[in-house]
Protein backbone atom coordinates (compact mmCIF):
# COMPACT_ATOMS: atom_id res chain seq x y z
CA UNK A 1 0.00 0.00 0.00
CA UNK A 2 1.19 3.54 -0.78
CA UNK A 3 1.32 5.53 2.47
CA UNK A 4 2.65 8.85 1.16
CA UNK A 5 3.72 10.64 -2.02
CA UNK A 6 6.03 13.67 -1.82
CA UNK A 7 6.62 15.89 -4.88
CA UNK A 8 9.13 18.68 -5.44
CA UNK A 9 9.07 20.64 -8.73
CA UNK A 10 7.41 17.77 -10.57
CA UNK A 11 5.25 19.08 -13.47
CA UNK A 12 2.71 21.56 -12.06
CA UNK A 13 3.62 20.77 -8.42
CA UNK A 14 6.02 23.06 -6.49
CA UNK A 15 5.92 21.18 -3.19
CA UNK A 16 3.20 18.78 -2.16
CA UNK A 17 2.66 15.85 0.14
CA UNK A 18 -0.28 13.46 -0.01
CA UNK A 19 -0.97 10.98 2.75
CA UNK A 20 -3.08 7.92 2.03
CA UNK A 21 -4.76 6.80 5.25
CA UNK A 22 -7.50 4.62 3.74
CA UNK A 23 -7.80 2.04 1.00
CA UNK A 24 -10.22 3.91 -1.27
CA UNK A 25 -9.04 7.45 -2.05
CA UNK A 26 -10.58 9.62 -4.78
CA UNK A 27 -8.59 12.54 -6.27
CA UNK A 28 -10.77 15.26 -7.73
CA UNK A 29 -10.51 18.89 -8.90
CA UNK A 30 -11.02 21.15 -11.94
CA UNK A 31 -9.60 20.49 -15.42
CA UNK A 32 -5.86 21.16 -15.59
CA UNK A 33 -5.45 21.23 -11.80
CA UNK A 34 -2.85 18.43 -11.63
CA UNK A 35 -4.77 15.17 -10.98
CA UNK A 36 -3.17 13.19 -13.82
CA UNK A 37 0.21 14.70 -12.95
CA UNK A 38 -0.15 12.98 -9.56
CA UNK A 39 -0.67 9.59 -11.25
CA UNK A 40 2.30 10.39 -13.56
CA UNK A 41 4.45 11.00 -10.47
CA UNK A 42 3.87 7.40 -9.31
CA UNK A 43 4.94 6.00 -12.70
CA UNK A 44 7.94 8.39 -12.79
CA UNK A 45 9.13 7.24 -9.40
CA UNK A 46 8.84 3.56 -10.30
CA UNK A 47 10.96 4.22 -13.39
CA UNK A 48 8.70 4.58 -16.45
CA UNK A 49 9.71 6.14 -19.81
CA UNK A 50 8.79 9.73 -20.71
CA UNK A 51 6.43 8.69 -23.52
CA UNK A 52 3.79 7.53 -21.09
CA UNK A 53 4.16 10.69 -18.98
CA UNK A 54 2.94 13.06 -21.76
CA UNK A 55 6.40 14.58 -22.14
CA UNK A 56 8.73 14.69 -25.16
CA UNK A 57 11.87 14.68 -23.01
CA UNK A 58 12.21 13.63 -19.40
CA UNK A 59 13.27 17.18 -18.53
CA UNK A 60 9.76 18.39 -19.49
CA UNK A 61 8.71 16.78 -16.21
CA UNK A 62 10.66 19.36 -14.27
CA UNK A 63 8.47 22.32 -13.28
CA UNK A 64 8.94 25.20 -15.75
CA UNK A 65 12.02 27.21 -14.95
CA UNK A 66 13.51 24.87 -12.32
CA UNK A 67 16.61 22.72 -12.52
CA UNK A 68 15.49 19.47 -10.92
CA UNK A 69 12.44 17.47 -9.91
CA UNK A 70 12.01 14.84 -7.19
CA UNK A 71 9.29 12.34 -6.24
CA UNK A 72 9.30 10.11 -3.13
CA UNK A 73 6.87 7.23 -2.55
CA UNK A 74 6.49 5.35 0.75
CA UNK A 75 5.14 1.88 -0.07
CA UNK A 76 5.05 -1.30 2.03
CA UNK A 77 7.75 -0.05 4.40
CA UNK A 78 10.13 1.14 1.64
CA UNK A 79 10.85 4.70 0.55
CA UNK A 80 11.58 4.93 -3.18
CA UNK A 81 12.90 8.28 -4.42
CA UNK A 82 13.74 9.45 -7.93
CA UNK A 83 15.37 12.75 -8.81
CA UNK A 84 16.22 14.17 -12.26
CA UNK A 85 18.52 17.14 -12.80
CA UNK A 86 18.91 19.12 -16.03
CA UNK A 87 22.43 19.24 -17.46
CA UNK A 88 23.81 20.99 -20.56
CA UNK A 89 23.49 17.97 -22.76
CA UNK A 90 20.46 16.30 -21.19
CA UNK A 91 19.80 15.13 -17.67
CA UNK A 92 20.97 12.91 -14.79
CA UNK A 93 18.59 10.50 -13.11
CA UNK A 94 19.18 9.42 -9.48
CA UNK A 95 17.35 6.59 -7.67
CA UNK A 96 17.25 5.97 -3.90
CA UNK A 97 15.74 3.20 -1.77
CA UNK A 98 15.51 4.19 1.92
CA UNK A 99 17.92 7.07 1.24
CA UNK A 100 20.62 4.79 -0.18
CA UNK A 101 21.65 5.58 -3.76
CA UNK A 102 20.85 2.60 -6.05
CA UNK A 103 20.72 1.77 -9.76
CA UNK A 104 17.58 1.60 -11.93
CA UNK A 105 17.70 -2.20 -11.99
CA UNK A 106 17.62 -2.26 -8.14
CA UNK A 107 14.35 -0.32 -8.26
CA UNK A 108 13.07 -2.61 -10.98
CA UNK A 109 13.83 -5.69 -8.82
CA UNK A 110 12.07 -4.14 -5.81
CA UNK A 111 9.04 -3.17 -7.90
CA UNK A 112 8.88 -6.70 -9.27
CA UNK A 113 9.12 -8.21 -5.76
CA UNK A 114 6.26 -5.97 -4.58
CA UNK A 115 4.07 -7.41 -7.35
CA UNK A 116 3.72 -4.10 -9.17
CA UNK A 117 2.95 -4.89 -12.81
CA UNK A 118 1.99 -1.44 -14.08
CA UNK A 119 0.61 -3.02 -17.23
CA UNK A 120 -2.78 -3.57 -15.70
CA UNK A 121 -2.90 -2.04 -12.24
CA UNK A 122 -2.40 1.56 -13.47
CA UNK A 123 -4.94 2.80 -16.03
CA UNK A 124 -4.01 6.21 -17.53
CA UNK A 125 -6.58 8.81 -18.56
CA UNK A 126 -8.39 7.83 -21.75
CA UNK A 127 -7.07 4.26 -21.58
CA UNK A 128 -10.01 2.50 -19.93
CA UNK A 129 -11.18 0.65 -23.07
CA UNK A 130 -7.57 -0.36 -23.98
CA UNK A 131 -7.88 -4.02 -22.89
CA UNK A 132 -11.15 -4.47 -24.80
CA UNK A 133 -9.55 -2.91 -27.89
CA UNK A 134 -6.16 -4.67 -27.82
CA UNK A 135 -5.54 -7.76 -29.96
CA UNK A 136 -6.49 -11.16 -28.51
CA UNK A 137 -2.78 -12.16 -28.51
CA UNK A 138 -1.88 -9.11 -26.37
CA UNK A 139 -4.69 -10.01 -23.96
CA UNK A 140 -3.42 -13.58 -23.63
CA UNK A 141 0.05 -12.24 -22.82
CA UNK A 142 -1.36 -10.47 -19.74
CA UNK A 143 -2.46 -13.88 -18.36
CA UNK A 144 1.01 -15.27 -19.10
CA UNK A 145 2.58 -12.46 -17.08
CA UNK A 146 0.52 -13.20 -13.99
CA UNK A 147 0.53 -17.02 -14.21
Amino acid at each position, binding site marked *: *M*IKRIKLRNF*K*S*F*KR*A*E*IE*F*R*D*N*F*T*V*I*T*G*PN*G*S*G*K*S*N*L*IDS*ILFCLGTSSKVLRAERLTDLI*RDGRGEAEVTIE*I*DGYEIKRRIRKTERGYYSYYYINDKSVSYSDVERLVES*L*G*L*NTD*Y*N*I*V*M*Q*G*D*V*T*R*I*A*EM*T*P*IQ*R*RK*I*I*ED*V*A
Partner: protein
Amino acid sequence: KRSAFLSAFNSINENFKEIVRELADGEGEIYLDRDDPFSSGLQIRFKPFGKPIQRLESMSGGEKSLLTLAFIFAIQRFKPAPFYAFDEVDMFLDGVNVGRLAKMIRKLSSDAQFIVVSLRKPMLEESDHVVGVTRGGDGESIVTAIQLR
Protein backbone atom coordinates in the same frame (compact mmCIF):
# COMPACT_ATOMS: atom_id res chain seq x y z
CA LYS B 1 4.51 -23.57 -17.68
CA ARG B 2 1.45 -24.81 -19.58
CA SER B 3 -0.29 -26.06 -16.47
CA ALA B 4 0.50 -22.80 -14.61
CA PHE B 5 -1.03 -20.83 -17.48
CA LEU B 6 -4.18 -22.97 -17.62
CA SER B 7 -4.78 -22.89 -13.88
CA ALA B 8 -4.37 -19.08 -13.93
CA PHE B 9 -6.68 -18.82 -16.93
CA ASN B 10 -9.40 -20.97 -15.34
CA SER B 11 -9.45 -19.15 -12.04
CA ILE B 12 -9.43 -15.72 -13.75
CA ASN B 13 -12.31 -16.87 -15.95
CA GLU B 14 -14.33 -17.91 -12.85
CA ASN B 15 -13.69 -14.48 -11.32
CA PHE B 16 -14.58 -12.73 -14.58
CA LYS B 17 -17.96 -14.49 -14.80
CA GLU B 18 -18.86 -13.46 -11.26
CA ILE B 19 -17.71 -9.86 -11.61
CA VAL B 20 -19.43 -9.26 -14.99
CA ARG B 21 -22.73 -10.42 -13.52
CA GLU B 22 -22.46 -7.78 -10.79
CA LEU B 23 -20.78 -4.93 -12.69
CA ALA B 24 -22.20 -5.15 -16.22
CA ASP B 25 -25.55 -6.84 -15.63
CA GLY B 26 -24.88 -9.74 -17.98
CA GLU B 27 -23.10 -13.03 -18.62
CA GLY B 28 -19.44 -12.82 -19.59
CA GLU B 29 -16.61 -15.24 -20.13
CA ILE B 30 -13.09 -15.34 -21.54
CA TYR B 31 -11.96 -18.14 -23.84
CA LEU B 32 -8.91 -19.13 -25.90
CA ASP B 33 -9.39 -19.33 -29.66
CA ARG B 34 -6.86 -22.23 -30.11
CA ASP B 35 -5.97 -25.39 -28.20
CA ASP B 36 -2.33 -24.42 -27.70
CA PRO B 37 -2.42 -21.64 -25.10
CA PHE B 38 0.86 -20.08 -26.22
CA SER B 39 -0.27 -19.44 -29.78
CA SER B 40 -3.87 -18.59 -28.95
CA GLY B 41 -5.63 -15.26 -28.53
CA LEU B 42 -7.80 -14.45 -25.52
CA GLN B 43 -11.35 -13.58 -26.58
CA ILE B 44 -14.09 -11.97 -24.48
CA ARG B 45 -17.74 -13.00 -24.87
CA PHE B 46 -20.49 -10.88 -23.34
CA LYS B 47 -24.26 -11.27 -23.32
CA PRO B 48 -26.14 -8.49 -21.44
CA PHE B 49 -29.28 -9.72 -19.66
CA GLY B 50 -32.21 -9.49 -22.07
CA LYS B 51 -30.05 -8.85 -25.16
CA PRO B 52 -28.35 -11.06 -27.74
CA ILE B 53 -24.61 -11.93 -27.48
CA GLN B 54 -22.50 -8.98 -28.63
CA ARG B 55 -19.46 -8.67 -30.86
CA LEU B 56 -16.73 -6.86 -28.94
CA GLU B 57 -16.06 -4.33 -31.71
CA SER B 58 -19.68 -3.18 -31.99
CA MET B 59 -20.01 -2.50 -28.26
CA SER B 60 -20.50 0.96 -26.85
CA GLY B 61 -17.89 3.00 -24.94
CA GLY B 62 -19.57 2.30 -21.62
CA GLU B 63 -19.90 -1.43 -22.24
CA LYS B 64 -16.22 -1.76 -23.22
CA SER B 65 -15.15 0.18 -20.11
CA LEU B 66 -17.07 -2.19 -17.83
CA LEU B 67 -15.60 -5.30 -19.51
CA THR B 68 -12.06 -3.92 -19.29
CA LEU B 69 -12.52 -3.16 -15.59
CA ALA B 70 -14.09 -6.57 -14.96
CA PHE B 71 -11.03 -8.20 -16.54
CA ILE B 72 -8.67 -6.14 -14.32
CA PHE B 73 -10.67 -7.02 -11.20
CA ALA B 74 -10.72 -10.71 -12.20
CA ILE B 75 -6.91 -10.68 -12.33
CA GLN B 76 -6.76 -8.77 -9.04
CA ARG B 77 -8.65 -11.54 -7.28
CA PHE B 78 -6.19 -14.10 -8.66
CA LYS B 79 -3.03 -12.08 -7.99
CA PRO B 80 -3.56 -8.93 -5.90
CA ALA B 81 -1.26 -5.95 -6.61
CA PRO B 82 -0.30 -3.66 -3.69
CA PHE B 83 -2.30 -0.75 -5.19
CA TYR B 84 -4.41 0.26 -8.19
CA ALA B 85 -4.40 3.75 -9.78
CA PHE B 86 -7.30 4.59 -12.12
CA ASP B 87 -7.45 7.93 -13.99
CA GLU B 88 -11.07 8.75 -14.90
CA VAL B 89 -12.02 5.18 -15.79
CA ASP B 90 -15.67 6.22 -15.32
CA MET B 91 -15.64 8.81 -18.09
CA PHE B 92 -17.88 6.81 -20.49
CA LEU B 93 -20.24 5.53 -17.78
CA ASP B 94 -23.78 6.76 -17.10
CA GLY B 95 -24.78 7.61 -13.52
CA VAL B 96 -26.09 4.12 -12.68
CA ASN B 97 -22.92 2.39 -13.86
CA VAL B 98 -20.68 4.88 -12.04
CA GLY B 99 -22.55 3.97 -8.87
CA ARG B 100 -22.13 0.25 -9.52
CA LEU B 101 -18.41 0.64 -10.22
CA ALA B 102 -17.94 2.74 -7.08
CA LYS B 103 -19.63 0.06 -4.94
CA MET B 104 -17.46 -2.64 -6.52
CA ILE B 105 -14.28 -0.67 -5.78
CA ARG B 106 -15.47 -0.13 -2.21
CA LYS B 107 -15.85 -3.90 -1.83
CA LEU B 108 -12.46 -4.67 -3.42
CA SER B 109 -10.77 -2.00 -1.29
CA SER B 110 -10.88 -4.35 1.68
CA ASP B 111 -8.09 -6.37 -0.10
CA ALA B 112 -6.19 -3.71 -2.06
CA GLN B 113 -5.62 0.06 -2.18
CA PHE B 114 -7.42 2.05 -4.88
CA ILE B 115 -6.38 5.57 -5.92
CA VAL B 116 -9.07 6.82 -8.30
CA VAL B 117 -9.11 10.16 -10.17
CA SER B 118 -12.74 11.04 -10.86
CA LEU B 119 -15.06 14.00 -11.52
CA ARG B 120 -18.25 11.99 -10.92
CA LYS B 121 -20.32 12.37 -7.78
CA PRO B 122 -21.25 8.71 -7.11
CA MET B 123 -17.51 7.89 -7.04
CA LEU B 124 -16.64 10.69 -4.60
CA GLU B 125 -19.51 9.71 -2.32
CA GLU B 126 -18.47 6.05 -2.08
CA SER B 127 -14.78 6.73 -1.26
CA ASP B 128 -13.19 6.69 2.20
CA HIS B 129 -11.33 9.92 1.60
CA VAL B 130 -11.32 12.66 -1.05
CA VAL B 131 -8.16 14.58 -1.97
CA GLY B 132 -8.78 17.87 -3.80
CA VAL B 133 -6.30 19.41 -6.26
CA THR B 134 -6.51 23.03 -7.44
CA ARG B 135 -4.19 25.64 -8.99
CA GLY B 136 -2.78 28.35 -6.76
CA GLY B 137 -1.86 31.99 -7.47
CA ASP B 138 1.21 31.41 -9.62
CA GLY B 139 -0.22 28.34 -11.33
CA GLU B 140 1.22 25.63 -9.10
CA SER B 141 -0.91 22.66 -8.08
CA ILE B 142 -2.08 22.63 -4.48
CA VAL B 143 -3.42 19.60 -2.63
CA THR B 144 -6.26 19.98 -0.13
CA ALA B 145 -8.25 17.36 1.74
CA ILE B 146 -12.01 17.49 1.13
CA GLN B 147 -14.24 15.95 3.76
CA LEU B 148 -17.52 14.79 2.32
CA ARG B 149 -19.09 13.20 5.34
